[in-house]
């Protein structure tokens, strides 16, 4: 092509149409290859190139403009993604895995699915995405339209203001929008695919990425090595120009870090980036190469930004040419029509790629997360009657694409040249960044709750509107300028670019600070205060522990098996169409090795499988409702499905209870064992007692019997002997009676059947009487008795006879153990602290320490030491204790083994306790 003369308009349009046709062809070819099972996009290079849809017309034309005004700052938009991809192994890989397992179709679906398949959250994300991204789409239309106008005036440069007053520009934008809509509809919504992969589309996007890179680098090479003698020459010349020289040093770095952060978040949160990076990812391992290929692409497309900017400044010193069009204007000024055309095509491809992917992503979101949930909720019966819904789904998506592009076009027409378009790239980034906290925290923090995410995103969005969107309206003249300079209603503290007096940042950094602060703060605090529902907890676990869980089917067992295979098939056909449904069911049958034509009831796993496939078509939340409707019949709401899912928590609860019970059981077993031991001990004691008692009974009985026999058989016994024998018989009978009485007494005391005759008793008198009644015994065994009674012991309330028995028991016990001849027994009575204390001391062998408690137990007898034989029935002290305890007192023994023993008992003085006894 020669260097002079105008560039004919038919050539421009022809080339453009030719390029777009090529794009259609590539997309068609990609789809065909995929249909044949030889997918073109099963290739990490294509995948990495498709991610480069990140570079839009804003990159292609705008980077140079930004470099001219802000120097190096423009690279922050590409350093952020580079850093994010360095973290890709940690963050992106997890996002992709989660999305594959859960059949995620868009970022709205991801967020909604993570937080309990919430319709509300999905809708909110969709609305924010549409509002935030729409202007960005108009920016692309504007870029193409204005570059078209600039090129049309070839070779004149700067003679016309880009789109001013030219109706043609508007028409161009409309035509472009229509073409893009057609493309998006053809290749983005060809059919409802359960995998939501658009292979032809991805192939075309990758192709466009190559084209825009080649175009930009060509212009860069031409400028650097054609117009100048390499980088050194270019930079040396630029250094002479004051306007260029100022770009050699950094402008203030205030916005540097915030912009890197913003672009880091944007590269995963922009709907189109999520679409190509996560949704369209065919194989997870493709990410491995993309992790460095995509940053490399960004580096390559940015190398020549500064040279082109400097060359533009050197070549057009009079500011007649907008820096945003340098990429196009430089080849034009140098009379390089082919290169100019290539640059135009590059810009066109950058814009179309972005618009197509963005509209497809947004239309999926609008369809799955906004329209379908509403239709399912409000027009339930109507939808349930429809046989085939896949047509409806496609219709919604296609309408959404047209709607988005139409609004984008109208926005472009309405705002035109105003400020709003120029800064809209970063404004859109900031809107998308509002999804980042819910997205990223949701992958790593199980406690992140639905209400937290809703509140966080809502607060972030409101702050975004206030700090970025409204001021941009003000700058466009839709709002009074005072809104920015003086604040709303003149309140200076609320100035949108210096909220609460925060200054020292650019408007984007300022907004990023406030929106993220509000967003993350609200999100975290509300999540901490919140209590998650069951489905939220299930989803949180599925997302956070995606690498731990074996795969889908973890929650499958939760569903009841009450849906038949044909029912499920009918449901799937309504959304996926007959053919794809067959494929889905065949795939399942093949994978599990079952014959679905014989199976009547669908098991939980098949239900889960179909639900995930449906989720690919209509979104996770809607799919759950639809499947649930089949499972339980019509009219089933989300709440009831929640109940089904609640069973997990019930199972958990049961197992927890079971654990508790088994622990209780363990404790009971221990108790039981102890009780059993005690019982055995008691049983043994009973046996001992029985043998003792029988022994005790037998001894007197034997003697009675034998003496009676002697008397009976020997009638010639003399009188004295006969008298002696009868005395023995009487004494033994008395002993027998006494023993039996003791047993009866003890039983009465223990069972509470003893009749107590409570009167005021003078204890000293009781003691005197007891000693008197035993005097004969003491004298017989030559034992001295001391009585130590302090004066004036008050009377107590008790049963006198029982008290006497108590004292007699103790005294006879004492005398029993005293040595013959030298024995001493001392009985004392004292009153202290509201108690009467009686002590009975002897100088016998004493009681070993380990016996001190046991001797009060019934049937226990001290055997050792003395004669080896039991000295009594073993009931005396037990009866004593029974009496004392009944009177509210206490009985114990103090003894040093070998040095006698002293028994004490106390009885409370007449008081409330004593009265209560009667």
């Amino acid at each position: 092509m020669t260097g002079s003369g105008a560039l004919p308009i038919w050539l421009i349009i022809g080339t453009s149409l030719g390029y777009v046709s090529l794009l259609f062809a590539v997309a068609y070819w990609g789809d065909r290859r995929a249909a044949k099972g030889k997918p073109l996009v099963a290739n990490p290079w294509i995948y990495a190139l498709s991610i480069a849809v990140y570079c839009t017309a804003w990159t292609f034309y705008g980077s140079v403009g930004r470099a001219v005004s802000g120097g190096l700052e423009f690279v922050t938009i590409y350093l952020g993604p580079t850093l994010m991809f360095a973290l890709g192994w940690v963050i992106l890989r997890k996002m992709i895995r989660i999305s594959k397992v859960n059949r995620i179709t868009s970022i709205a679906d991801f967020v909604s699915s993570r937080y309990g398949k919430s319709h509300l959250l999905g809708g909110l994300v969709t609305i924010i995405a549409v509002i935030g991204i729409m202007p960005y789409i108009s920016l692309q239309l504007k870029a193409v339209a204005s570059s078209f106008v600039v090129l049309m005036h070839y070779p004149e440069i700067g003679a016309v203001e880009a789109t001013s007053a030219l109706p043609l520009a508007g028409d161009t934008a409309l035509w472009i929008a229509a073409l893009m809509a057609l493309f998006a509809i053809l290749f983005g919504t060809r059919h409802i695919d359960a995998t939501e992969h658009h292979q032809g589309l991805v192939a075309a996007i990758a192709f466009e990425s190559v084209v825009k890179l080649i175009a930009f680098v060509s212009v860069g090479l031409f400028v650097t090595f054609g117009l100048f003698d390499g980088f050194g020459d270019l930079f040396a010349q630029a250094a002479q120009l004051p306007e260029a020289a100022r770009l050699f040093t950094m402008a203030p770095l205030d916005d540097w870090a915030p912009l890197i952060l913003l672009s880091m978040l944007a590269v995963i949160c922009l709907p189109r980036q999520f679409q190509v990076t996560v949704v369209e990812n065919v194989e997870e391992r493709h990410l491995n190469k993309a992790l460095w290929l995509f940053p490399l692409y960004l580096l390559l497309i940015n190398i020549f930004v500064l040279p082109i900017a400097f060359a533009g400044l050197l070549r057009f010193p009079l500011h007649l040419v907008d820096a945003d069009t340098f990429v196009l204007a430089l080849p034009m000024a140098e009379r390089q029509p082919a290169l100019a055309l290539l640059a135009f095509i590059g810009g066109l491809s950058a814009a179309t790629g972005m618009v197509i992917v963005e509209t497809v992503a947004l239309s999926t979101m609008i369809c799955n997360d906004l329209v379908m949930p509403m239709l399912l909720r409000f027009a339930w019966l109507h939808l349930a009657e429809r046989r085939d819904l896949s047509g409806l789904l496609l219709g919604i998506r296609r309408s959404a694409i047209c709607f988005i592009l139409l609004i984008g076009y109208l926005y472009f027409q309405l705002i035109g040249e105003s400020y709003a378009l120029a800064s809209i790239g970063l404004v859109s980034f900031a809107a998308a960044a509002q999804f980042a906290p819910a997205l990223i925290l949701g992958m790593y923090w199980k406690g992140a709750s639905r209400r937290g995410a809703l509140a966080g995103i809502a607060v972030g969005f409101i702050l975004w509107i206030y700090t970025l969107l409204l001021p941009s309206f003000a700058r466009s003249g839709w709002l009074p300028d005072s809104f920015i300079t003086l604040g709303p209603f003149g309140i200076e503290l609320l100035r949108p670019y210096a909220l609460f007096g925060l200054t020292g940042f650019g408007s984007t950094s300022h907004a990023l600070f406030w929106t993220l602060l509000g967003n993350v703060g609200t999100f975290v605090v509300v999540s901490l205060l919140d209590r998650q529902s069951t489905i939220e907890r299930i989803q949180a676990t599925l997302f956070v522990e995606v690498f731990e869980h074996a795969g889908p089917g973890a929650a499958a067992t939760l569903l009841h098996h009450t849906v038949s295979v044909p029912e499920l098939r009918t449901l799937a056909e309504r959304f996926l169409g007959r053919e794809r449904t067959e494929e889905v069911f065949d795939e399942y049958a093949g994978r599990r090795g079952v014959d679905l034509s014989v199976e009547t009831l669908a098991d939980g796993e098949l239900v889960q499988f179909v639900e995930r496939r449906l989720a690919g078509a209509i979104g996770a939340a809607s799919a759950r409702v639809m499947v649930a409707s089949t499972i339980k019949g019509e009219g089933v709401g989300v709440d009831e499905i929640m109940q089904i899912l609640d069973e997990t928590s019930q199972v958990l609860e049961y197992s927890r209870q079971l654990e508790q019970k088994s622990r209780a059981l363990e404790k009971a077993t221990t108790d039981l064992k102890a009780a059993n031991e005690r019982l055995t001990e008691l049983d043994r004691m009973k046996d001992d007692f029985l043998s003792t008692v029988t022994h005790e009974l037998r001894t007197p009985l034997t003697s009675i019997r034998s003496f009676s026999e002697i008397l009976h058989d020997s009638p010639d016994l003399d009188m004295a002997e006969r008298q002696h024998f009868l005395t023995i018989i009487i004494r033994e009978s008395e002993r027998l009676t006494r023993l039996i009485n003791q047993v009866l007494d003890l039983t009465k005391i223990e069972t509470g059947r003893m009749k107590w005759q409570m009167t005021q008793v003078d204890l000293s008198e009781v003691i005197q009487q007891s000693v008197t009644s035993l005097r004969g015994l003491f004298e017989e065994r030559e034992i001295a008795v001391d009585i130590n009674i302090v004066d004036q012991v008050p009377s107590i309330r008790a049963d006198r006879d029982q008290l006497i028995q108590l004292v007699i028991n103790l005294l006879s016990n004492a005398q029993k153990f005293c040595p013959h001849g030298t024995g001493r027994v001392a009985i004392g009575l004292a009153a202290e602290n509201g108690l009467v204390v009686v002590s009975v001391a002897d100088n016998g062998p004493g009681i070993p320490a380990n016996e001190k408690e046991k001797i009060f137990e019934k049937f226990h007898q001290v055997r050792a030491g003395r004669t080896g034989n039991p000295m009594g029935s073993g009931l005396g002290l037990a009866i004593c204790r029974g009496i004392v305890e009944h009177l509210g007192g206490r009985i114990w023994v103090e003894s040093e083994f070998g040095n006698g023993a002293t028994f004490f008992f106390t009885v409370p003085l007449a008081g409330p306790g004593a009265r209560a006894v009667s």
Partner: protein
Amino acid sequence: MSRGASSDSRPRRGRGAGRVGEWLVVIFCFGALAFSPLVIKLFDRGTGATVLGVPLLYFYLFGAWALLIVAIMLVMEGRTERRGGPVEAPRQRPSGEAR
């Protein structure tokens, strides 16, 4: 019939995968440091300082960027090479012995 211990000397996939993540996080940290305003200011020498005719600031920034990409590439590509053969499935114990 005893199995030699040498058959297991090949690095395990699990370990390699863990290392990749760790390396990339380290690279990210270095990248974040290299692109931090503090470090960039060190190289901000205006028109005076140039390397091969390119201002030092630009040279540093694009150089650091390229190094970062090379580092990611080395880690990722090294990983795919090292993995080599198919991953061994966990060996099943012969069944039959109930213990």
